[in-house]
C-alpha cells in the first residue's frame, strides 16, 4: 500500500523550493500589509536573540520517504522521495550521543522512519545507549507490508515511545488530511499497538496521539480535545492511548501550498500573529532540541530543516562535528513560520508548551 499522490517535488511545484517558500512567508498580504516580523515580536518581549536553554532532545529525521502523502506535510514526504539517512550518518548520531549524556531523548521522524532500511538497527543501538527513543509512527505503515506487521512487538522490545498522528476521531477529516482509507487503517494499527500493551494502563508502554487541525484553523484546548478523543476512540473502537498532543500546522511546504491554494494564507497568518503568546515563545522546543537532517546537517527544528535554514553560522553545522556545549551558545534561526509555535498555548512536537 502506498499513496499515489506526488510530492510537491515530484510535481516540480514552485513551493518544493525552500527559497520560494521563504519568499512567500516574507511577502505582504494581498491587501499589501506587512505581517509583523517574528524576530521583532521576540525583541518586544526580551526574548531576542532566542537561545537554547540546554539541549536534551536530538530529533533525527531519517528520511523523507513515506507511504502516505498527507496534505499538511511540512516535509513534503511521500513514496516518491528518496532521501534516506545512511547507516554511516546514523553512526555519527550515535557517536554524538555518546559524547552528550545530557541528551536523554532521541526523537525519530521522517517520512515514515520505519521505511529506512537501517531503522531497526538504529533503534537497537540507541536502546543500548540507554536513551529514550521516540518514534513518530504514522500508524498505516504497520499494515502497509508484511515486513512491518511486527513493528508493535519491535517497539515493545525496545520500550519505544510511540507518537502517532491521528487528526480526528472520524474518517472524514482524517482521510481529507492523510488520504483515503487512512482512518480505518489507523484504527486497526492502534488496536494492534493496544494488543501488545501500548497505551494500556500499567504497561509502561507509551502511546501518544498527535492532533493537527484538518484545515485552516488552530487547535483548541489540548485537555478538552484529549477528553473528546478518548471518549470517541474508546466508545467507538475500544482504543486506549496515553496523551493527545495538539500541534499547530506551520505554514511550510504542503500546508503552505494548501493555505495559498485555498485562499486562507493571509487569514491563517493573521490568526497565528493575533494569537502570539510570549509565554509560549519562551517555551518553544528549539530551545531544548537539535534537529538532524537525513544527510547529517543540523537545524534548530524540523521546520527549519525543511526550509533549509541550518543552525547559525559559528555553531557546528554537521553531526560529525556535534558539540552540545557549542550548540547551546547559538542564536536560533527565526522566520515568519515560527509564529506557528507561539500561538495560543504554544505548539511543539510534544504538544502544547504552556501548561
Amino acid at each position: 500500500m502506498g499513496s499515489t499522490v506526488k510530492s510537491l517535488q515530484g510535481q516540480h511545484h514552485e513551493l518544493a523550493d525552500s527559497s520560494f517558500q521563504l519568499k512567500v512567508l516574507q511577502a505582504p498580504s494581498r491587501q499589501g500589509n506587512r505581517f509583523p516580523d517574528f524576530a521583532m515580536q521576540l525583541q518586544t518581549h526580551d526574548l531576542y536573540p532566542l537561545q537554547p536553554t540546554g539541549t536534551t532532545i536530538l530529533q533525527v529525521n531519517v528520511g523523507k520517504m513515506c507511504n502516505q502523502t498527507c496534505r499538511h506535510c511540512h516535509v513534503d514526504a511521500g513514496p516518491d522521495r528518496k532521501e534516506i539517512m545512511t547507516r554511516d550518518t546514523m553512526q555519527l548520531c550515535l557517536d554524538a550521543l555518546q559524547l552528550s549524556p545530557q541528551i536523554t531523548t532521541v526523537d525519530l521522524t521522517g517520512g515514515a522512519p520505519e521505511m529506512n532500511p537501517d531503522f531497526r538497527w538504529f533503534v537497537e543501538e540507541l536502546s543500548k545507549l540507554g536513551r529514550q527513543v521516540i518514534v513518530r509512527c504514522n500508524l498505516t505503515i504497520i499494515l502497509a507490508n508484511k515486513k512491518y506487521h511486527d513493528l508493535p512487538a519491535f517497539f515493545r522490545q525496545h520500550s519505544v515511545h510511540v507518537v502517532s498522528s491521528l487528526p480526528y476521531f472520524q474518517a472524514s477529516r482524517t482521510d481529507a488530511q492523510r488520504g483515503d482509507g487512512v482512518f480505518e487503517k489507523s484504527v486497526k494499527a492502534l488496536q494492534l499497538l493496544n494488543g501488545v500493551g501500548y497505551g494500556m494502563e500499567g504497561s509502561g508502554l507509551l502511546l501518544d496521539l498527535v492532533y493537527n487541525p484538518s484545515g485552516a484553523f488552530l487547535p483548541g484546548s489540548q485537555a478538552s480535545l484529549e477528553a473528546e478523543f478518548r471518549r470517541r476512540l474508546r466508545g467507538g473502537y475500544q482504543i486506549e492511548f496515553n496523551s493527545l498532543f495538539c500541534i499547530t500546522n506551520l505554514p511550510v511546504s504542503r500546508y503552505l501550498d494548501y493555505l495559498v491554494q485555498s485562499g486562507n494564507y493571509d487569514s491563517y497568518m493573521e490568526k497565528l500573529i493575533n494569537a502570539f503568546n510570549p509565554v509560549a515563545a519562551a517555551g518553544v522546543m528549539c530551545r531544548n532540541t537539535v534537529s538532524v537532517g537525513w544527510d547529517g546537517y543540523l537545524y534548530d527544528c524540523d521546520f527549519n530543516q525543511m526550509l533549509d535554514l541550518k543552525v547559525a553560522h559559528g555553531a557546528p553545522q554537521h553531526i560529525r562535528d556535534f558539540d552540545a556545549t557549542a550548540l547551546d551558545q547559538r542564536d536560533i534561526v527565526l522566520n515568519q513560520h515560527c509564529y506557528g509555535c507561539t500561538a495560543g498555548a504554544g505548539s511543539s512536537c510534544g504538544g502544547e508548551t504552556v501548561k
Partner: protein
Amino acid sequence: MNNTYYNPADLAKFGKISELQPEMGRKFFDYYEEVFKEGALTEREKALIALAVSHAVQCPYCIDAYSSECLQKGADENQMMEAVHVAAAIKGGAALVHGVQMMNKIKELTM
C-alpha cells in the same frame, strides 16, 4: 462607505466598539470571556450553542466566528448541522406555535 451592510473584515474590529463607551465595552467583553470558559458545559458545547444561536439571530459575523470556533474545539460536522437544526426547529416552532393564537382568533370571530 461600503456598499454592503456586512463586511467580513469588520468582525476583527469587534473590540473597537469599546472606543465610544470604554466602560460598558470592557464589562461586556469581560462577561463574554467568562461565559465561554469551560464550566458546567464544555467549551465545545458552548461553541455549538453559540453556533445555533448565531443562526437563529441570523448574524453573519457570529456564523463565521462560531463555525471556526466549533472546528477549533473539535466539534464534528454532524454536531454542527444538528445545532443548526435545533435553531431551525425553535425558529420554526416559534412561528407555528402562534398558529394556536390564530386558531383562537378564528374561533372568536367565526360562527
